[in-house]
């Protein structure tokens, strides 16, 4: 059965780009438009992995990661964050919140798939 990945971003173009790449690689994709929306959807229906942006309205990515890690069903789920900085506090902050890894924007589809392969197998 195809693994299910949620992509969370307030930018529809980023969601589309991530979605197309993942679908092309055979994953099932669901979308969240911000942290709050994603959290609601993720509670209702489990996924195998989450790819989330950090800066979003309503609920940011760091909070989303923290909220998800509190839920037993998401305690060990791979969560990858999208960052614009290659280094620095955001990455560390995300890691401390419980993110599995990160992808630095801008990225190309093969990079995204490389990271997903790394954390999802």
């Amino acid at each position: 059965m195809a693994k299910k990945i949620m992509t969370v971003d307030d930018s529809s173009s980023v969601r589309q780009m991530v979605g197309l790449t993942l679908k092309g690689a055979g994953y099932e994709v669901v979308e969240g438009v911000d942290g709050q929306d994603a959290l609601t959807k993720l509670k209702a229906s489990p996924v195998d992995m989450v790819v989330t942006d950090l800066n979003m309205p309503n609920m940011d990515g760091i909070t989303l990661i923290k909220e998800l890690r509190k839920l037993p069903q998401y305690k060990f789920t791979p969560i990858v964050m999208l960052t614009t900085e290659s280094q620095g506090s955001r990455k560390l902050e995300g890691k401390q919140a419980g993110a599995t890894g990160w992808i630095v924007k801008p990225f190309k589809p093969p990079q995204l798939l490389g990271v997903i392969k790394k954390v999802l197998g």
Partner: protein
Amino acid sequence: MAIEIDTSAFTEEAYELLSELEDSLLELEENPTDQDLIGRVFRAMHTIKGSGAMFGFDEVAEFTHEVETIFDLARNGTIPVTKVLIDLTLAARDHIRALLDAAAGGDEADKVEAQRIIDGLRALDPSNSDQPAAAKAAPAAKKGAKAKDEDGPQLFRIRFKPHPEIFANGTNPLLLLGEVTDLGETRVVTHHEALPELEALDPEQCHVSWEIFLTTEEGENAIEDIFIFVGEDCEVNIRALDQEEELTTSPQKLGDILVQRGDIAPGILEDALKPIGDRLIASGAVSQSKVKAALEEQKAVKQKRDQKKKQESATSIRVPSDKLDNLVDLVGELVTVQARLNQISSTRDNHDLQVIAEEVERLTGELRDNTMSIRMLAIGSTFNKFKRLVRDLSKDLGKEIEMTTEGADTELDKNVIDQLNDPLVHIIRNSIDHGVEGPEERVANGKPAQGKIHLAAIHSGASVLIRVDDDGAGLNADMLRQKAVEKGTVPPDVELTDKEAYQLIFGAGFSMAKAITNVSGRGVGMDVVRRSIDNLRGTIDVSSTLGKGTSITLKLPLTLAIIEGLLIKVGDELYVLPLAAVEECVELSAGDVANAHGRHVINVRDEIVPYIRLRDRFEVEGTRPEIEQIVISEVNEKRVGFVVDDVIGQHQTVIKSLGSNFEHSEEFSGATILGDGTVALIIDLGKMVRFVESEEEESPE
């Protein structure tokens, strides 16, 4: 969400890396087997590629990736560092620069050139691999595409000890181990000593760690890439085991391994290690104090090295150069105000005020010197650029030329260095094209086939001398005279000394080249040199021996912002002459003038010196003083007198530009504000002399 990235951080870093890259490549050309240098070149490209991709400079990243791929082969020894490789990498470096310039709004980079470089580089790869540009982030795609390592695969030891909480981050260590095994042949040892009894086991925690022995043709980078996400909260230690230094490493490392593998207990290791010094003493091989001394020495060296590292990281900060320019302007204002303060305090009979004025004078002087020294840069980086120029040009012209430099650490004002680049380029080009002969001609003349160009910077008082020597054909003074007469720049009956003849090469449109090459010979160039050096208030001296070589010396002021001046008076106005050019001041009496029979010359200790009367030049009305003063100066290697009414004295001159209205002034290079607020014009002696000479030529009565 808009992705806004400040790219200036990247471009600044990239430009710096590129200049480092050039230096390293040129050095590498001389020491093609230096692994350190190869590593430096590789790292510079790796960084440019990596940050280029992150900052959205895709073209830069992709292009650099291609170059890096080939250079990686040189790094791991698959291909040798050859001249061809260096040529191509240098060209690639230029192309990356062009790409960056293009991104900053410059001209578009040449795509054909890019393809030429990449094709050339790919041709160097024995397996002719064709890696996709994005392969870096996807190790699986990279595998197999890489060229076979001639030295055979390398053995790595990877110690991977996950943090107990690793699962809580969604990381699955088994996937990482799987990725490692994908890289090559592996032997994995699992350390499960820490695994608790079943009753005490927390299944949500990771209790095991691994040691992997990987034999792979991939580099360390590929392994590091696997652990990139866990690097911070896991212990990951990657070592190449079959490198020579690893085999000769200290025995403690071996002990550590044994302890970790459980072969010996830590206590046994400690016992085995501890008495080493004692055992040596016991066996009589060495005395206790000697062992102690050796240990102290080791400690001291280490401490010193650490200190040095610390210092290196703390000794410099970067400041945008316009901030410094601002600071210099402010110091200039302060010097002017201080002069006013001095003047006022000297007219008041107030001791307290005078003390303060003196203190301010001292502090201002120190502040001025400090500020100026901040803007001083070593000329070395400029010299390095010329290494490249000499190398490329001599290759184009089929000449063999070695360039040597001297005094690269000589410091000059940043603005002087910036403006010195173009004139030096012209001079060196000229030396390569007209000076140094081709190898056959040189051998026929009994010289070594390889020519020499020597670039030297020497401190000389408040000036710096930059000398360009070549051991080429030298200048032919007779031919220069003949050419000048043919061109009509010099009348046939004028006799020029050799020195004067040499100066002819700086005339506009003067060319000695028999044929126009693409390097020089169009008659532009050396007059540009003269103009640039004039603007820098410098002078040019040429000496040459026919058949032996030519030496061109530029004398430049240390700084452009503040000069020592000689304050003089003509009529009611004050002017400043640059003190550096002044040789002496003598009196000009009415009798001297009468003796010269209307010619503007004076006899100074048996030497006839022509003079220019500033009163006449500036059309000052009124009568001349009974005794005038002549300031004898050296201008373009000739002594010329300037007749003034009175010499006031030395003056710290803060130079203010005249603004665009007076930009083309033939006689003044700037102005300065005196202590009482009046403005004094600064006379450009060289320009004035040339201007007077050209006027006289037009009306030779």
